[in-house]
């Protein structure tokens, strides 16, 4: 009866573009200058949109809002890797991907202003609306991938969530099923180090989050989430593998939530300014800019154009959002079921034309 090793596992960490803006030539895929400019412009746009949302909130023109600052590379990278026919299941700190998928900016403002019309995903865009309960959307992505497999649709499903979600049962049940049935789904964890005030180390004693995939029988990989090249490449490969029938992948994108949890939070209560400052040097936009400067892709004129175009798009979205007519109160009854039940009809009638004395 021998004692022997029955399993050996390894977790890779990928970084193509480092903090100094240097790309590893052995890992760097061929990106055209146009593509690199698109990476930059998309990240700048996401940051400006995010800043505008925070400003609107401070002015009382938007409700509670969850900033993505610092996570632009994860989101733009994943957004670019998705194809239109793929499905995506977002969490609540995901506006970067939403915009890459084509969700009108006005929808995002509407949702964060408490107007459910923001959740109406346009026809043809295969995405779920924002999921507020943490991690509970993970099994939905697994189910959609299962549906695709049953229908033999060659698509992939992406689901995004944070480090906190990896402590939830929904995450584990979803991952387990994806592994058992080899489903075309990519789990992208944006490990931004904080779940409100609880640090990553309090979520799990695991050395990495990526290794959780090992237990479910499929690969987990860790990527520098502030490296747009690494994010685009890793997500693209995982989605392609899923579309080919190669099964699920778990990607842990190591990044940082530069902002408070939401506008209702004050992160200085639980984390040090030094820690935040340390991550400022790892900024995803900054490092791409340095790389572009070094490779002569960046020019002041390009920067100006990007800033102008992005700001115009943001301001247009604000204008569209604020021009939305008010919601008809009766509408709250209209989507509970396909056909309203008798009590809904009665309640709607009573709301719109209250019975007279």
């Amino acid at each position, binding site marked *: 009866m021998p004692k022997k090793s029955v399993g050996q596992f390894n977790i890779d960490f990928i970084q193509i573009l480092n903090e100094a803006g240097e790309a590893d030539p052995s890992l760097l895929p061929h990106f055209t200058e146009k593509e690199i400019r698109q990476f930059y412009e998309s990240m700048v746009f996401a940051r400006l949109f995010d800043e505008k949302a925070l400003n609107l909130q401070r002015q009382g023109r938007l409700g509670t809002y969850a900033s993505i600052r610092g996570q632009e590379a994860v989101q733009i990278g994943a957004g670019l890797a998705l194809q239109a026919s793929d499905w995506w*299941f977002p969490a609540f700190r995901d506006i970067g991907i939403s915009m890459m998928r084509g969700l009108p900016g006005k929808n995002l403002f509407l949702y964060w202003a408490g107007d459910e019309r923001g959740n*109406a995903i346009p026809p043809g865009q295969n995405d*779920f609306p924002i999921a507020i309960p943490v991690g509970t959307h993970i*099994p939905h992505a697994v189910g959609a991938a299962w549906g695709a497999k049953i229908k033999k649709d060659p698509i992939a499903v992406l689901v995004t969530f944070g480090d906190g979600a990896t402590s939830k049962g*929904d995450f584990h049940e979803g991952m387990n099923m994806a592994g058992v049935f080899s489903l075309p789904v990519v789990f992208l964890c944006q490990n931004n180090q904080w779940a409100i005030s609880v640090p990553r180390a309090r979520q799990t004693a695991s050395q990495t989050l990526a290794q959780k995939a090992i237990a479910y029988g499929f690969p987990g990989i860790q990527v520098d989430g502030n490296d747009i090249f690494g994010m685009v490449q890793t997500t693209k490969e995982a989605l392609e593998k899923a579309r080919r029938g190669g099964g699920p992948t778990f990607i842990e994108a190591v990044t940082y939530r530069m902002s408070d949890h939401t506008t209702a939070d004050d992160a200085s209560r639980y984390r040090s300014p030094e820690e935040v400052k340390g991550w400022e040097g790892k900024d995803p936009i900054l490092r791409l800019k340095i790389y572009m400067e070094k490779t002569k892709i960046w020019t002041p004129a390009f920067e100006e154009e990007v800033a102008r175009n992005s700001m115009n798009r943001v301001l247009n979205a604000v204008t569209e959002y604020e021009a939305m007519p008010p919601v008809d109160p009766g509408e709250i009854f209209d989507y*509970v079921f*396909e056909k309203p039940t008798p*009590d809904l009809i009665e309640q709607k009638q009573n709301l719109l034309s209250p019975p007279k004395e």
Partner: protein
Amino acid sequence: MEKLTLVQAINLALSEEMERDPGVVVMGEDVGKDGGVFRATLGLLDRFGGERVIDTPLSETGIIGAAIGMAAYGLTPVAEIQFLGFIYSAMEQIISHAARLRTRTKGRYHCPLVIRTPYGGGIHAPEHHSESSEAYFYHTPGIKVVVPSTPSDARGLLKSAIRDPDPVLFLEPARIYRSIKEEMKGDDPIPLGEARIARSGKDITLIAWGAMVHTALKSAEAVKKEGIEAEVIDLRTLYPMDTGKILSSIEKTGRGIVVHEAPLKGGLGGEIAAIIQEKALLYLEAPVLRVAGFNTPIPLPKMEQVYLPSPEKITAAIYQTLRY
């Protein structure tokens, strides 16, 4: 036609619906090779294959959560939860997602999901196998709740539940899975939201669902000897509730009793009594009574009969109401 039990009728409805619509997928614990712990899915795996009859891991949240994703993707999953008492870990999926998907996406997505699950006491089962927690679901906007009490109704209602574009919780009274046999009354789906007059009577209205319909019928037979004609309404669908049939019966009899296995407090008996007093107060000759489970967890089998409504308990309530 051959006479079928309630569980056989469910099996028939499942196979008919899977035959009709290739998008119908049956999933759950032990539903494949084993044919379900009550054999409700017997033979489906052989007939429809492993892609449509899926033995899942032991994972209630995963089953319901994945079924929601499948439903949104365009399939019609019929998920089995082995006993209602095990559904609680999936409550967040049901309440926060399945039931809200249409509303929160303004109709962009909907959730044609059926959750089948045996429920109720009287089957001498271990702990957590005899729950009757329909009120949680009735209380949840966006989900329909269906409970058959006869084999024919089980078949027709399950067909409607599967064809319904919104989530349906289909509660199967395990106690009468095999105790009644009947010939199927036609192939047609039975519309959701329509109650059935299980017995006509002019003196008092008994309102029940699931296994309690039969308990109420026994009580109605017992008081018949004293010349009392009790009407028994089998609600069949709890949500949306057929209040029309309840009210027209009360208008006729002037007296009503609601019978349910679930605990008295916060149970549907209170809801039905409220509907009756809101809409038919002046027809009432007596307060609407409730014969229900106690506000204790349902006891293990040795004490179960103490807890459950019985014909005797209902008969006592009938006399109390008539004497009022």
